[in-house]
């Protein structure tokens, strides 16, 4: 029996140090949420934090945040270091960028990178990402831009701090280019605060264990991960699995086709998106970094859900997508609402693997509804906030989908009471909508209905970013689809990617889409149906129609 492993650490030591490093990422996330200003971070969770080793290998991520950013992070750090090489970095530097192709696929997210120095050398990096309230540009965050320039400025990687000194040029640049400078600059500094927490945590570990570098620990983490996943992959059927998924289009294009062939072998998942439809001239195109993030995500949740994410997990994934297909949009295509299509990579891949991994895949979810609202509140504060509702969660082979739970992304709507105070808009209603989940042996989650009235006394500009109004969440393996989403402004049905002007008193009403069911509805247990009836999730009528066999005996 060998007692050592990766230098002078064995698996016991590595396990302990690994947990410690993950907890530093959690501390970074907590600092970011608690110091941030915009609701996107503090209420909606639209952020992520990551730690890397000195060779820019991905070590750990915070437990909360959104999955897309942890997928883009590893390519972001490489993109930044291509422009500002590690040799040009000094202790106390902080580099930022919002370039969509280096960062997260659109200009609205700021990526903040801090090198961690120990004994004069770079031993790691902290990377945080958060959605900013504004980055200049045309009408603001939305799906309707015709090129990337309309969407706001793209700041190439630049030092916000040089050896601990604030770069006043960058600050002035923001002050002259954004609409809500206090929110934007506040959030910029809160990202820096989070990076500082991470850097301190990493240095503390090195000091405590008398190490010069984390590389040895990183090697140990990656070796354990690699062998655990290799083992896990032995149980996954090998082959190439294909799927096509139409997604609601924009700009006169009725549907856009997503296509994937997933080759599963002992080396991991290899995705080929050949056959996917071309880019469109609206801001819904997806840069490859964002597509890659969801490829990582699918591999992670299907094969290794309980292994903390790191470089060795994502090294099991490769992908290819034709240039300027909608999942690999090149510069300068507009990408503002790239997530509308990007999120569909998950159901596309789950669909492809439904027969290979039936116990792991999830039926389609209702997908997030999103509206960006810009206006001035009763208290005279300018605001630019996004409201999210999650739709119903897709079911699994052994678990009902929860009502009003986001998937695959993880945005949060936030409390009604906070929203009303921050915006001066007024919620008339927000509650679960019965009969909206897809029937199945395991039932899809319900959507909810919400109605929001503009009580600010002024015009509020709204931009919808949503789907599922024509193409419902599919059920898997015999399960039924969830209900469609319905978006109305003052009672008039409205396009899910429209930009609207809300006059004082105008009402947005959204009936949210449900999640798809899993398995044959005839196999659903009467006890579950009874419980759904008791909990008001379904009506007796709906049960009669969807579970006729069981309904007779209820």
């Amino acid at each position, binding site marked *: *029996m*060998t*007692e050592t492993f990766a230098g002078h650490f*064995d*698996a*016991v030591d590595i*396990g*302990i140090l*690994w*947990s410690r490093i993950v*907890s530093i990422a*959690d*501390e970074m996330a*907590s600092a970011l*949420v*608690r110091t941030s*200003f915009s*609701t996107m971070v*503090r209420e909606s969770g639209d952020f992520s934090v990551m730690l890397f080793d000195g060779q820019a290998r991905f070590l750990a991520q915070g*437990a909360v*945040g*959104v*999955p897309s950013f*942890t997928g883009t992070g590893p390519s972001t750090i490489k993109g930044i270091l291509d422009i500002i090489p590690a040799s040009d970095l000094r202790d106390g530097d902080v580099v930022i960028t919002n370039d969509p192709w280096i960062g997260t696929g659109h200009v609205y997210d700021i990526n903040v990178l801090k090198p961690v120095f120990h004994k004069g050398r770079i031993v790691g990096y902290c990377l945080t990402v958060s959605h900013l309230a504004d980055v200049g540009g045309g009408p603001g965050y939305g799906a309707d831009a015709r090129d990337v320039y309309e969407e706001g400025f793209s700041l190439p990687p630049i030092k916000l701090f040089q050896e601990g000194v604030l770069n006043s040029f960058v600050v002035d640049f923001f002050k002259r280019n954004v609409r809500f400078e*206090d*929110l934007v600059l*506040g959030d910029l500094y809160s990202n820096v605060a989070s990076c*500082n*927490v991470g850097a301190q945590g990493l240095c503390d570990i090195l000091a405590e264990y008398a190490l010069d570098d984390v590389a040895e620990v990183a090697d140990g983490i990656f070796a*354990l*991960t690699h*062998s*655990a996943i290799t083992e896990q992959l032995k149980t996954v059927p090998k082959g190439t699995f294909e799927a096509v998924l139409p997604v609601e289009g924009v700009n006169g294009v009725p549907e856009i086709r997503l296509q994937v062939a997933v080759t599963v072998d002992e080396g991991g998942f290899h995705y080929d998106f050949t056959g996917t439809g071309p880019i469109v001239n609206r801001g819904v195109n997806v840069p490859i970094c964002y597509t890659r993030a969801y490829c990582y*995500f699918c591999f*992670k*949740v299907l094969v290794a*859900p*309980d*292994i903390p994410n790191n470089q060795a997990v994502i090294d099991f994934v490769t992908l290819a997508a034709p240039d300027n297909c909608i999942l690999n949009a090149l510069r300068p295509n507009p990408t503002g609402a790239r997530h509308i299509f990007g999120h569909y990579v998950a159901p596309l891949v789950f669909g492809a693997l439904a027969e290979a991994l039936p116990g792991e895949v999830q039926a389609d979810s209702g997908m997030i509804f999103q509206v960006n609202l810009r206006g001035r509140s*009763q208290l005279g*504060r300018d605001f630019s906030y996004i409201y999210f509702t*999650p739709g119903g969660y897709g079911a699994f082979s*052994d*678990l009902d989908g*929860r009502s009003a*739970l986001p*998937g695959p992304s*993880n945005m*949060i709507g936030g409390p*009604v*009471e*906070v929203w*009303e105070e*921050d915006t001066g808009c007024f919620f008339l209603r927000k*509650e*679960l909508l019965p009969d909206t989940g897809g029937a199945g042996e395991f039932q899809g989650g319900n959507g*909810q209905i919400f*109605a929001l009235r503009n009580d600010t006394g002024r015009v509020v500009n709204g931009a919808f970013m949503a789907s599922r109004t024509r193409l419902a969440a599919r059920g898997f393996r015999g399960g039924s689809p969830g209900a469609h989403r319905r978006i109305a402004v003052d009672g008039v049905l409205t396009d899910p990617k429209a930009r609207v002007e809300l006059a004082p008193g105008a009402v947005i009403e959204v009936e949210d889409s449900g999640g798809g069911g899993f398995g044959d509805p005839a196999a659903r247990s009467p006890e579950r149906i009874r419980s759904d009836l008791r*909990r*008001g999730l379904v009506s007796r009528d709906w049960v009669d129609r969807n579970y006729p066999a069981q309904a007779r005996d209820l």
Partner: protein
Amino acid sequence: MPRFALSVDIGGTFTDFVLQDRERRMVFTDKVLTTPNAPEQAIFAGMDLLAERSGLTPASCDLFLHATTIITNAVIERKGRDFIFVYTEGFRTTLETGREHRYDLTNLKLRFPEPLARDDLKVSVAERVSALGEIVQFPSCETVVSDIERLVAQTGVKNFAVCFLHSYRNAANEEAVRDWILDRFPDAYVSMSAGVAPAQREYERWTTCAVNAYTMPILADYVRRLEGGLAERGFRDRGLMMTSSGLPLSFDHCVRYPVRLIESGPAAGVLAARAIAARNADVDGAGDAANVLAYDMGGTTAKGAFLTAGEVHVQSALEVDRVGAFKVGSGLPLMIPAIDLIEIGAGGGSIARMDERGAIAVGPRSAGADPGPACYGRGGEQATLTDANLVLGLLSEANFRNSGIEASAALAREAVERNVARPLGISTDRAARGIHNTVNENVARAFRVHAAELGIDYRRYTLVSTGGSSSLHTIAIARILNIRRVIFPFGAGVSSAFGLFTGREGIALQKTRLVRLDRATRDDVVAQVDGMVAGERVASALAAGGGTISLTLGMRYERQGYETAVKIGPDRTLFEPAAIHRAFEGEYRKIFGLTFPDHAIEIVNWTVEVSQGAALSELEGYRYENVREGGAREKGVRTVLGERAGRALAVPVLDRYALRPGEVIAGPALVEENDTTIYIPAGSPAVVAPSLDLIADLEAQP
């Protein structure tokens, strides 16, 4: 003055007693098995036992102090009572949809807590208050009363949770509905969200109110039985229960706010740690008696709390019933003033395994008492922390005989080998050491993260160790954290009951009211504080009786969403906005390492504590009734396995009850007592203090 004071802590397994005899200056302790279905039965049984030993008669006892897990258990086991949820029309499912968030990013199959409210017991009310606190719509008495009467007639349920939007800003609509309910049903239980948790965020406030309603009839019934029994025995003086904030409150007040008892026992334990550190303040050592880290590990969980400058940290929110492996966000959020406790899924029964990473994981799953650790031989196949400690020689088979368990080291060894060593490809000794170390690191990590959130440098803190499974790990944890002084109190098995005596009767009031600091004056702050005190019966009575009024503010920069707790204290000269500004910036920099000088600062939450200046009772200088005289100091020698394979130590085993003040234990040594075993490694000599507490000094470490 009557001769006796009694405290009782009802735990999951045992009900602990501490009786103070002021005449003989003596302390009696005892333990009886908890009687979950009628907890008062254990109390009466214990009182009878103590009466035999001490001469306790109810008439000679003027103080009855109480901590209990009754509320927590009712919530976790979903054994509360049905209630009618009365809500703002249009928001029927706020309790069920919750935060609409996955608490684990990369595990899609998630569990969430079972809802507390029944959908067929909901009454919608057409009413509304705006975000600014204006009444947009006042409810119709006629409609509300007829809807409620109909539901009561159908179901017989007369327990209500009234939950309206923005009631924390204006409670008029909730109050009106409460009054109409009580007018129609004078014997009804009514919880009102603005009364239970007057703070912003509807899901959290309503959940707190729902938990309050869910448990109120249970506590009311229990208190009625308890008071009846006490009265029958002739006890007729003050009865107080410990609340989560560490302030004991009268029984009748607790019955109105049962949700505040969620951390009743642990809060008493934290107060005990403070008193234990204080009573050893004169003993030489590197630690600081007013700065304490309280640590307690039992069978399934470990708990910790920091005390700074003798004060507990009180937070305004906590989470119970975390169904997703202790993960934040997987439980029910409660907005109540509570001692800031860290809870970790680690204890003697925690199951060790090779996890998905290929490394060792311990907990949060626990083998519980049945089947228990593998060494019990009751069919437990899994290796637990207790099994690992038995393999290491830190425990011996003999340790279990007190509890009537025939433990087998061979079974422990088999389980560790089968479930951890073989899968990982390491030796059984190394696996056992790995399990032990993983728990040390898990506990230390949780403390470290928590300290960072509070902005605390814990290295000069004194670690006070209580709980049955703690003390084999305490010094190792202290070393990881660079803490230099550790106290193992005498009588640790009943420490929460001890802690009850040291509480100061009082109440914590909370209010959300947004005030921009640059637009406030000292008079505004004073008026807000005095208004809160005047509006609460118990608080104003305490204040009138000379109680201390202390202020803590939840503050943030304008447009942030999370508040930082800033303790202002009782000194009203510090209510000046400029002083509050300084206090906030100082605290903010301590936690986050920066401030935002250009941003306006706002006060969001007001916490006002009104408490009596003195502890309920003093135990300083009291003798323990159950200290044995004489007896052999050394019970034998045991082999303990070291950090790496092949290094074994011969460690003397000492009898705690034979140790006398002034004795020094050089270490390595194992010190055995009834409920626990302490490990003193080499390099951390421990001295027996006059209090009989054992104090280890880690300054001497290599």
